[in-house]
């Protein structure tokens, strides 16, 4: 029986249901987009270039899984152990095994990659002109570089800041597609291994015997040497390009960190749109109840209607969702967190999950909304005016208040617990407060309107009076527009604010902590030991502190559970520290950092890991190697320089290039200018010490761009949701507007009334949003910098508040205009 009613209901309430459709469509779009990012993190990537010929690519395992099952992408190349290489060589199905290591060189300021000539078969490259390299100073260049030089020419290549001359003896081209992500030169195997930082190979290409499939071979390799990672087919790109692996990890991280917030907001939007659209039909449901529809029948009616509408909306949302993923990919590539040629995986699973989740969510929302309609008293059908039942359920209020209080309490954690770990409190607090505002929204809005409305009513303007009165009696409807705006504002402020607080403190620390006069870098590839020696020997130099930065995953036990945390780590020369770097040591001394069994921790890291002076700490370095070291010092400037410090030599043994990133140089008094000059002449890049960026600044910047992109996507979604809600809520007022015009208001007055209402809504949203953000931000600021006043960019904050406010005002104006387009008579005249 219900089917006919469902069909008729959908036909009749097209306007209202379109609102619901749009809400579900956009929510699905958002969920699909984020889902594609996550799936691409698991499967997407780059096509192999340099290793296109090899059947199986073998590399070290680039992920580290901590005891508590957290997975980290390792930032440095993990070498393939020598015995693993031997084990692979003797596999009967392996026809050829070729080891390779990429050596970063610089040529006239640009970064290029060098390999031993034997590894040319992995592409394969073959000589088109000239011959293979035979002497130590001979090179073969690829097609990209051939354009810059010619056969027989002498070129200058730099490794680690030390230049040498080479003769071009050959030009090579790939048999298939030419690798384009990097330019390559080939040297003799002997020269290449002399450059290899850690001796062994980092990538091994294996060719299968005829009749053996790559995946079979990969299985055999894995069975023989389980500690290595194997890549076949398209996946070989992930083995070739370390940044592809990092990009994957980034995508998973971004996708999942935003998925939670996005789904929360989408649920809220879908639910409130749905209950709004169902509420508009109260009288209809009351009439059905009067003539004998049971509550269950009303439930089923609503559920089926919603199923059809939400189903259509969800399916329509898939394609835009895929486009959204592509747009976000573009944004992330622009931000530099994923390679610009990183390809997304468009599998069926993310859209499927998004559709199912959104349909399920809307069914849930329908059940809640229908509960109200099903319980409706049949006599309401007889009442002339459809009033808004503004009551917020008691349970909802209680949950809202509890979450709100918890949120405030969590914001205050940094007041009690010292250090950066305490900011986990405020970060969680922001989410708690956002949910609380979502739940308490209508009630808060009513209270706020009572306060704000009083002066408006006494302004003497008819429009202002009407606006204030309407807002009071329709607070629920207004709340449906205010709450998403407030959530957007709150979310945006917390997100942007947290980043700028951290960045400001990090910069302040590194400014205060660098005591050297100059900062020296050696072009794109870093500084080798030889280069550091050259700097040390430069007249006028007092001390040289070579610095290398990487990441360490520290494992520790917290409250009885194994935990791990990734920290930036720097490798320095403790002997040169005195005049180059001041870490703000609070206990112990950095002089005791002497080998790979001694480290220093920032006070934050010490607190988080529970390690004290003399304690032993276990961690995994960037290449996955385990170190166990004694804490010999703690210092305050962890955010500026990295939370863990060890010796330069010990850390470089575990980085891809084995080179230092830069050197801090102090000069004898008055010699700064001359040192700068002679180092410049020797081919180094010399910068003022103020140019030093805080540890992890680059990563933070990319990260903040990423967050801004994701934030923009969520805010965009909120904007659509608000417009949609307002159009829906305003459409309900056709009769009211028509009646107002009949009793003598001009169209202008109606519009003025709506403008005032929208201003009220926007102001309330801004206030609520700022309140949601304020407590967590103060908490975070106290935790990070010890200052209660958060250092956040006023322009960014104003942009967030302003853009959402403008969206609100425009949405309401458009909605009002749309509603008033029809003549008042047709509205009043239209029966029911």
């Amino acid at each position, binding site marked *: 029986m219900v089917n006919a*009613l469902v069909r*008729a209901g959908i036909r009749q309430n097209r306007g209202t249901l379109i609102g619901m459709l749009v809400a579900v469509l956009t929510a699905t779009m958002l969920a699909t987009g984020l889902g594609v990012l996550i799936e691409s993190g698991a499967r997407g990537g780059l096509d192999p270039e340099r290793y296109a010929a090899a059947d199986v690519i073998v590399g070290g395992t680039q992920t580290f899984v901590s005891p508590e099952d957290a997975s980290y992408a390792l930032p440095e190349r993990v070498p393939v152990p020598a015995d693993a290489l031997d084990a692979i060589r003797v596999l009967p199905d392996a026809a050829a095994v070729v080891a390779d290591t990429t050596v970063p060189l610089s040529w006239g300021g640009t970064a290029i990659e060098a390999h031993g000539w034997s590894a040319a078969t992995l592409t394969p490259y073959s000589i088109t002109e000239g011959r293979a390299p035979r002497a130590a100073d001979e090179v073969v260049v690829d097609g990209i570089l051939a354009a810059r030089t010619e056969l027989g020419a002498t070129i200058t290549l730099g490794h680690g800041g030390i230049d040498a001359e080479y003769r071009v003896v050959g030009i090579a081209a790939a048999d298939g597609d030419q690798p384009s992500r990097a330019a390559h030169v080939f040297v003799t195997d002997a020269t290449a291994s002399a450059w290899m930082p850690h001796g062994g190979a980092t990538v091994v290409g294996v060719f299968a015997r005829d009749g053996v499939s790559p995946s079979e071979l990969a299985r055999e390799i894995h069975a023989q040497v389980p500690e290595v990672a194997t890549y076949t087919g398209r996946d070989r790109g992930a083995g070739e390009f370390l940044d592809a692996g990092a990009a994957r990890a980034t995508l998973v991280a971004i996708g999942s960190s935003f998925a939670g917030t996005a789904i929360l907001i989408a649920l809220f939007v879908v639910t409130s749109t749905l209950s709004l659209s169902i509420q508009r039909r109260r009288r209809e449901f009351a009439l*059905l*109840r009067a*003539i*004998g529809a049971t*509550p*269950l029948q009303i439930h089923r009616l609503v559920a089926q209607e919603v199923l059809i509408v939400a189903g259509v909306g969800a399916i329509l949302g898939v394609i835009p969702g895929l486009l959204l993923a592509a747009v976000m990919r573009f944004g992330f590539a622009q931000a530099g967190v994923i390679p610009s040629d990183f390809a997304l995986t468009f599998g069926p699973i993310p859209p499927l999950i998004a559709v199912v989740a959104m349909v399920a969510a809307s069914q849930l929302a329908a059940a809640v909304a229908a509960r109200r309609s099903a319980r409706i008293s049949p*006599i309401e059908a007889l009442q002339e005016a459809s009033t808004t039942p503004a009551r917020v359920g008691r349970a909802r209020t209680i949950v809202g208040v509890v979450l709100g209080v918890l949120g405030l309490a969590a914001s205050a954690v940094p007041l009690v617990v010292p250090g950066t770990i305490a900011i986990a409190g405020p970060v969680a607090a922001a989410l708690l407060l956002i949910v609380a505002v979502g739940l308490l929204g209508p009630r808060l809005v009513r209270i706020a309107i009572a306060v704000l409305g009083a002066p408006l009513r006494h302004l003497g303007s008819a429009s202002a009076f009407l606006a204030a009165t309407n807002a009071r009696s329709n607070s629920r409807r207004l709340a449906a527009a205010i709450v998403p705006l407030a959530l957007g504002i709150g979310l945006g402020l917390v997100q942007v604010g947290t980043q700028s607080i951290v960045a400001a403190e990090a910069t302040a620390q590194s400014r205060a902590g660098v005591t050297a006069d100059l900062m020296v870098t050696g072009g794109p590839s870093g500084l080798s030991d030889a280069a550091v020696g050259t700097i040390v020997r430069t007249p006028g130099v007092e001390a040289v502190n070579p610095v290398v930065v990487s990441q360490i995953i520290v494992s520790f036990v917290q409250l009885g559970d194994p935990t791990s945390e990734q920290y930036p780590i720097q490798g320095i020369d403790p002997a040169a520290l005195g005049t180059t770097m001041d870490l703000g040591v609070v206990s112990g001394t950095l002089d005791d950092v002497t080998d790979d069994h001694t480290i220093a921790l920032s006070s934050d890291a010490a607190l988080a890991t529970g390690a004290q002076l003399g304690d032993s700490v276990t961690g995994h370095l960037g290449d996955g190697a385990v170190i166990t070291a004694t804490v010999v010092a703690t210092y305050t400037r962890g955010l500026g320089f990295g939370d863990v410090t060890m010796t330069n030599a010990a850390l470089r043994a575990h980085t891809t290039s084995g080179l230092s990133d830069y050197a801090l140089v102090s000069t004898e008094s008055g010699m700064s200018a001359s040192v700068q000059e002679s180092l410049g002449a020797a081919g180094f890049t010399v910068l003022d010490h103020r140019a030093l960026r805080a540890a992890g600044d680059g990563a933070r910047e990319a990260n903040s761009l990423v967050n801004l992109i994701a934030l923009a996507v969520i805010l965009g979604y909120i904007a659509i949701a608000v417009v949609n809600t307002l159009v829906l809520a305003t459409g309900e007022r056709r009769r009211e507007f028509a009646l107002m015009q009949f009793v003598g208001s001009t169209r202008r007055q109606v519009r003025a009334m709506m403008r005032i209402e929208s201003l009220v809504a926007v102001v309330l949203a801004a206030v609520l949003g700022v309140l949601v953000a304020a407590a967590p931000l103060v908490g975070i600021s106290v935790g990070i910098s010890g200052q209660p006043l958060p250092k956040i960019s006023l322009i960014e904050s104003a942009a967030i508040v302003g853009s959402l406010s403008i969206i609100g005002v425009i949405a309401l104006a458009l909605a009002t205009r749309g509603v008033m387009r029809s003549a008042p008579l047709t509205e009043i005249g*239209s029966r029911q």
Partner: protein
Amino acid sequence: MSRLDTAVTTVDHRGPARATAGSPATGSAIRLQGVVKQYGTGTSAVMALRGIDLSLARGSFTAIMGPSGSGKSTFLHTAAGLDTPTSGSVWIGDTEISHLRATRLAKFRREHVGFVFQAYNLLPALSVEENVTLPLRLAGRGVDKPWRDRMIHSVGLDDLRGRRPAELSGGQQQRVAIARALITRPDAVFADEPTGALDSRAGKQVLDLLVQMTHELNQTVVMVTHDPMVAARAERVIFLADGALVGALEGATTQQIVDRMTGLGTW
């Protein structure tokens, strides 16, 4: 205003009772006993009905009159099972409906009770024909087509059966509502000012239809009205004031009703 406790009256049967319904004990179609309805609690409490005892015989046509706010609509809702009384009992046929839960009550209503309200009677999405058969659909019953066609024909809407409510005049809408109220062959039909929103000619048409059809089908009808001329069509007029029964007239003329209403004060 004094309460009138002797309002229980029986009215003669006209025609045989249908075999499917009827309370052998009393022979009444609708019976109220000590019905009290209070809105709100505490100081803001409103006593809308202050203990109504009443029994209406099968096939009777009763009009309810009284000043605005006297509790007429409340009485009708309570008697029809749209609302439950604060205390007291309501029987329709053999069933005591005052203690039924929402679902049972809804099922009872769609089988045994018909309604005609002042306005907003119809679902805008449905055609005339669909609106008329809506109670049957809700009950999951098949539509008895000859019966449906007879109902639509009786209210004179043969040509308009495919139209939507928005395409009908007010009088036509009320006639659809009457057909819908009778489609289930209910035990009782309740009408709250069914002609209140119509001009006098359309009002008379609708009223004639209601009287004639219910008479033909031997239906029990309870109708709230402000209009003495309308009330005069009823066999019996019951007067309410301040939530209590304050009198009844049998077969009264318009003038008698007017006089009685004037006696009750404002109306």
